């Protein structure tokens, strides 16, 4: 390969390697809705890195100024907050789930439920009171007095955590058509050690920290593209609906399409980031000026000034908008191709849409007008009673979840050291995650159960190539 140094300029050489190497096929971006046929999962934001840094790399098509802004956001994303007053990064808490963005979104990747001997690190619990009338009224969840809408299980020394959560798993065995036994673990969550009593009828919903790369691309998908996949009444009779969530946009001061979060309850990355500062770290911003502990005995003093400036909010938002998507690997492997075919045949691709085209995201040209392979429709789907959290969130009912993107899923083991999937990490590998699918995905799960072992292996190898 060294001979190439003399044939091509260095920059060109490296851009070849970054863009096209690791595969024998040149760029083939255009594709059918069912097959991606390209390793460029993030369009021109794709990076070719198969190390544990695969989720942490800036989009390669950033301008120098945008790149600098990304790096500023990177520093803030890693910033560890402490109890005020302090010289560096004050404002933590008094109650919170974690002390920095990176501590939950480790290596910009995916969180997991705690091991038996650990506390909660990258899994949190949303709380709410049940709605008396129509549970899907399009309104936000009702806060629990004294707790709000999220259990903050940690606190500064002079305050008390709102409570802890005890997690118990019960194993159940599922047998596929060819007699293979798969063990699924059913979680049971008990809120314990609360600083004051919780109402009996509290709704509790677990949420694991999702990976944060490629999010600008998802934000750049035009609303009409997403709505084109919606089929709320299942007019085409395929058993799969797809429902948009409409959620409160605090900047626009109106209901807009929800895109982010496990139930698509955040409309923009700016609001997602600000909400995470507020709900997860107890840090106020101009979007959420009220401490998450407001109204509680925990809150002793409150600054009128946001604890994180608009400038920081802006660069952190930009950071998650411009993290690159890792390229697929082994796309020409026959087993991978077979798995991709099976993925389509089982109708997985009806919700996990392989190919979408982004529009224009203001201020972020690198994610604009890209052909991407996220494997999501960003819509809500009924996933059946076993995955249900029974906690409505705007238009999402207690059985509905947003289709999560699958890009990068094959690298989670390398980046985050685990293969825990689904909204609470109950699945311990990809096959378990598939077999948890119910509701609208019932037929798809059954199709996988009917597959031979070789076919299921191919399906997994395909997913691992993402």
């Amino acid at each position, binding site marked *: 390969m060294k001979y190439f140094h003399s044939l091509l300029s260095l920059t060109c050489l490296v*851009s070849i390697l970054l863009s*096209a*190497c*690791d595969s024998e096929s040149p*760029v083939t971006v255009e594709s059918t809705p069912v097959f991606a046929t390209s390793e460029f999962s993030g369009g021109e934001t794709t990076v070719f890195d198969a190390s544990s*840094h695969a989720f942490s790399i800036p989009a*390669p098509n950033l301008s120098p100024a945008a790149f600098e802004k990304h790096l500023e956001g990177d520093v803030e994303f890693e910033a*560890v907050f402490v109890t005020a007053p302090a010289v560096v990064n004050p404002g933590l808490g008094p109650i919170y789930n974690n002390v920095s963005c990176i501590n939950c979104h480790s290596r910009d990747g995916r969180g997991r439920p705690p091991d038996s001997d650990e506390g909660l690190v990258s899994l949190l619990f949303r709380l709410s009171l049940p709605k008396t009338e129509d549970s899907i009224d399009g309104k936000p969840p009702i806060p629990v007095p004294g707790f709000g809408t999220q259990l903050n299980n940690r606190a500064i*020394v002079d305050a008390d955590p709102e409570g802890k959560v005890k997690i118990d798993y019960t194993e159940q065995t599922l047998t596929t058509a060819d007699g293979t036994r798969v063990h699924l673990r059913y979680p049971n969550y008990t809120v314990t050690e609360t600083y004051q009593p919780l109402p009996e009828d509290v709704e509790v919903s677990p949420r694991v920290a999702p990976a944060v790369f490629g999010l600008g691309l998802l934000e750049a998908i035009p609303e009409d593209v997403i709505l084109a996949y919606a089929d709320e009444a299942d007019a085409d009779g395929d058993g799969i609906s797809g429902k948009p969530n409409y959620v409160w946009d605090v900047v626009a001061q109106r209901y807009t399409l929800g895109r982010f979060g496990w139930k698509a309850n955040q409309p923009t990355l700016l609001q997602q980031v600000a909400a995470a500062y507020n709900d997860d770290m107890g840090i106020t911003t101009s979007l959420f000026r009220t401490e998450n502990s407001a109204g509680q005995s925990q809150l002793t003093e409150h600054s009128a000034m946001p604890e994180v400036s608009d400038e920081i909010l802006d660069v952190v938002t930009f950071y998650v908008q411009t993290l690159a998507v890792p390229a697929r690997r082994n796309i020409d*492997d026959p087993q991978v191709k077979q798995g991709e075919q099976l993925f389509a045949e089982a109708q997985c691709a009806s919700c996990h849409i392989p190919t979408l085209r982004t529009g224009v995201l203001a201020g972020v040209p690198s994610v604009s007008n890209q052909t991407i392979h996220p494997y999501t429709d960003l819509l809500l789907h009924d996933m059946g009673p076993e995955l249900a959290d029974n906690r409505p969130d705007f238009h999402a009912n207690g059985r509905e979840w947003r289709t999560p993107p699958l890009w990068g899923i094959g690298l989670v083991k390398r980046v985050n050291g685990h293969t825990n999937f689904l909204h609470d990490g109950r699945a311990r590998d990809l096959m378990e995650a598939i077999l948890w699918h119910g509701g609208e995905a019932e037929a798809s799960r059954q199709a996988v159960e009917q597959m031979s072992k070789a076919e299921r292996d191919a399906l997994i190898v395909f997913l691992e190539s993402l």
Partner: protein
Amino acid sequence: MKLYKVWTLFDAACKSKFAIGLCCLLLASTFVVGCGSDDETDEHDDHDHGEVFDASTMLNNFANTVVLATYTDLDNKAGELLSAVKALAADTSQGNLEKAQQAWKATRTPWEQSESFLFGPVDTQGLDPALDSWPVDHVNLQSVLDSGDDLTVDFVSGLEDTQKGFHTIEFLLFRDGNQRKASDITDRELEYLVSTTENLKTSTSQLRLAWAPEGENFSSAVAQAGTGSVIYPSQSSAVQEMVNGMIVIADEVANGKISDPYNESDTTLVESQFSFNSISDFQDNIRGIQNVYMGKFMTDGQGLNEFVNSHDPDLDARFQQEVQAAIDAIGAIPDPFRDSITANRGAVQAAIDAVSKVQQTLEQDILTLVQSSEFN
């Protein structure tokens, strides 16, 4: 991670999709053989050129002679620090304080060197924040010291990472960098010091065991890359991990640890500011790069240098020289670093430039070479 400044450089040259596509077509038509270095299924039989590099010896050496040996040294040094802290608690003499301070610095050395491979269990088990969180939460720490809580190991272990680990111990042992008087250390501080150092030792043991054959044996996941490793299905992905680790710390030292306090002229941003150990910290970071590249810690083995040398001896020689130059340039900054960010700006800038050069060569030459090479 502040990775890959170089990415944007490529972008400047190959901005349009057309340009990239053209490059790719060129590549595909003239150099089919060289691609597929990310061949995760380890199928290489169809490649017919002779420059396949078997990285198994190098990876095995990296995992054991470098990483595991560094973590073993860290764990041993943490044990010595614990003994020194216990001796200080038993007899709070100035001599015992100075011994504990020296033991802290000695423990810091392998830790800083290990920052050239911050991946695997140190990250996935949350050990990096447990050991090295910054800043210290002074308000929380003081609240605990002022409380009536029994400062047992269990109690302190349950506190936030920002009131445990290296920098909390550093604060208790050194305070503000001036001569700390043993007689100023309170009994509560001594109790806290012993418990938090016990907790540090637990973390360093966990880290060592995570890599050790008698523990979780992450070493084998690296050493067996491409031959059964569940983490690294190809040798190239593991070699890329090695190089990325070096890039990350070079970037961190050049553009974070040295530049941030220097650009802002802000001493509160300086690493290891209580002990005035900053310059040693930075040098050890670059020595960590040297260790990975040369394949050595206490003993020498096959490193990346042999691989680079086999392809490009000039690059190998230049990089070795650049790494040493960076260590020397950092060492040329007058102590303490926190004064030099204002008083000796030329020396600080020279160190930034020297480390940036290391980063640049890693990104533009060595990573490129690795990504374009065929591994077994």
